[in-house]
């Protein structure tokens, strides 16, 4: 049976008098990849910010794994498995690449002061496992040679990879990726598409904002097209891609 992991109903968000998200509704089924496309200013990133709790919504409902979550703070959503990346990459500059990844895993025992002093063995063992996992992840993302460099020294594309790697370290149920391929070289972007599909097979769900039509068509199971704050079209990638409204938004029309 198909389960909806994320369900959004009639989300609204105004900035002053401007309606950024105007009654957006859609669902994401578990273990699928949904692409979210739309012209600049259509409200895609605002929608991400509403879903993950960075913005307070003006009205509407959000369900995650069947639970109402619109009042839940961001960090709790992350703890129950909803993790995002950012369109403008946020590398933790004055931390090393490795440290960025080590931060990812949830509920680390060493994040509690008492464990650091009372259960040092447990903390050290856990840290060793996390380091091992982080190194594997770095290897996959071609960042191994940079592991001891400050994250702030990475290129734009590398920061994007770092962010995705860091998000994966949390073992999320669902990943919301905001333009994951922008600035990433084509070879690696293909590799990422493969990785995303592989993670889906293992049970992960994705919601991806992306402007590169070829890549997003290739990676997604379904596409949603957003225009002026609403989802106005949903369906199989090939159908959505060739819809006149989509062509109009992307190619510019008369």
């Amino acid at each position, binding site marked *: 049976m198909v389960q909806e992991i994320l369900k959004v109903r009639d989300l609204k968000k105004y900035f002053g008098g401007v309606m950024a998200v105007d009654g957006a509704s859609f669902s994401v089924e578990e273990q699928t990849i949904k692409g979210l496309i739309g012209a600049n200013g259509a409200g895609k990133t605002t929608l991400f910010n509403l879903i993950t709790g960075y913005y307070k919504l003006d009205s509407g409902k959000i369900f995650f794994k069947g639970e109402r979550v619109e009042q839940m703070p961001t*960090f709790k959503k992350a703890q129950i498995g909803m*993790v995002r990346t*950012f369109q403008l990459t946020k590398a933790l500059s004055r931390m090393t690449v490795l440290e960025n990844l080590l931060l990812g895993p949830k509920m680390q025992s060493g994040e509690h002061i008492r464990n650091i002093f009372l259960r040092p063995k447990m903390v050290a063992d856990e840290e060793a496992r996390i380091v091992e996992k982080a190194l594997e992840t770095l290897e996959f993302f071609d960042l191994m040679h940079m592991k001891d460099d400050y994250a*702030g020294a990475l290129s734009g594309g590398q920061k994007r990879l770092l962010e995705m790697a860091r*998000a994966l370290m949390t073992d999320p149920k669902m990943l919301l990726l905001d333009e994951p391929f922008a600035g990433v070289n084509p070879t690696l972007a293909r590799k990422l598409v493969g990785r995303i599909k592989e993670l889906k097979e293992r049970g992960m769900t994705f919601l991806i904002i992306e402007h590169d039509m070829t890549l997003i068509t290739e990676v997604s199971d379904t596409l949603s097209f957003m225009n002026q704050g609403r989802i106005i079209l949903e369906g199989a990638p090939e159908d959505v891609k060739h819809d006149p409204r989509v062509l109009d938004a992307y190619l510019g029309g008369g």
Partner: protein
Amino acid sequence: MIDYLVAISIIVGIYAIFAIGLNLEWGFTGLINFGHVGFLAIGAYTTVLMNLSGAPIWLSMASGVVLAAFFGLLVGIPTLRLREDYLAIVTIGFSEIVRLFLLNEEWLTRGPMGLFGYDRPFEAMIPFDYNYFLFILVFGSLAVIYLLLEKLVHSPWGRVLKSIREDEDVASALGKDVFRYKIQALMIGSAIAGLAGAFLAFNMQYINPRNFIPMETFYAWIIVVLGGSARNKGTILGAIIVQSFYTGTRYLQDYVPLASHQIAALRVMVIGVLLVLLMMYKPQGLLGRKEELTLGQ
């Protein structure tokens, strides 16, 4: 001569403790606390008042530390959910409220007349000059605090603090309860300041509200920045430089033909010039890492 060095060293040690608490807040967590001296005052006055009302000195000291941490919690709850500049404003206001309370509530604090005649730990049992014992006590405490902090900042807990300093949105995206960590950093930093306050009281044997003016907060900031933010060793080095200079030049008037108030002003000016030079030639601080300043966001 030795006595004099010991006396200066005690002051260095007290300021190192005071500033290393701020380094946890600012250097590692990015909290802008402009009211650090308020927690120093709470530590000092609580220790003294408790002892004067009959509590044993160790219990009094512990109360000072705990109460300073508690006030860190009180100040943090309404402000740490807001952006960082609010914390700066609220803390500077808080430290002035503390000082004005101490100055005006004479029934409790004797106001500007200050407090004296309180015990110092083991004072009756020390057969030699008490300053030698205080020296050991202060530096022993500094060593313990330094080791504990180093352990903490190199743990996963410290990693979360640094991620909050870099970008708290990322920390929450990864499931970290940013507010809880900020509160913890502020409470620990304040507790350490409270302990420094108790030592300050022992060293001076007389406290009054003038010891806790806002400038004291900025000495701690100078020490942290001079040594290099997020470097605990740097903070200790910063304390040695600033306080040995500041205290050492107190005797300058014997050699320089200026009035004492002019010399006092001159000392502060020289510290200012030193800081400007440092920012020009070594902006990362003495033990800071230069690469960190050239990183883009």
